[in-house]
């Protein structure tokens, strides 16, 4: 069981390195954003596998925190790509 979880953790980390290739070589900025979002999702699965590996429930809060932070990062980055600024001071919209 432990060997299986180690192997699956290594597979997830290698997948994250594949996403890093897309971040470095992406032709456009939305490509890099998509790869970054997928890396955030893979961090969550790596955290779940780590909590299986150490057999503790203390990592489960980290899963929620990573999910919220990844979603906020995705929303703000896509708004920045679409409009050029994140926080607007325009009240007549």
């Amino acid at each position, binding site marked *: 069981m432990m060997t299986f979880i180690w192997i699956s953790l290594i597979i997830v980390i290698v997948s994250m390195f594949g*996403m890093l290739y897309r971040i470095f070589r992406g032709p456009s900025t939305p490509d890099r954003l998509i790869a970054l979002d997928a890396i955030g999702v893979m961090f969550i699965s790596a955290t779940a596998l780590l909590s299986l590996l150490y057999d503790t429930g203390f990592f489960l809060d980290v899963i*929620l925190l990573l999910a919220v932070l990844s979603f906020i990062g995705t929303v703000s980055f896509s708004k920045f790509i679409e409009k050029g600024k994140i926080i607007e001071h325009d009240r007549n919209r």
Partner: protein
Amino acid sequence: MTVIANTLIVLTIVVGLIFTVVTVIGVLRLPDVYTRAHAASKSATLGVLSILVGTFFHFWFNEGYFSVRILLGILFLFITAPIGGHLMSRAAYFSGVKPTELTVGDDLAEVVERAKKEIK
């Protein structure tokens, strides 16, 4: 009982790993931003959901600990990952990234043209 629980955990984690590897292959091999967003948002979400279900089964069957936090994380990811995928594709479209030459139709272009005419 332990054998059945371990079989269930291993099956769900293997399904999650397959979807994760499919995500990486799709993001590295597909020709376009929109097809890559399709691969990343759907398949990565299903992979992480399956791995989280495996973790939930482990803590429920082997430890006797019904973890509500994992269920909350599954629900949050299930809601927010399609929203993130849609936002990223929309940002890519409006920032002017061209689709590949293999694309057959573009339905959003007519709607955008009509909206621009109505504004003017």
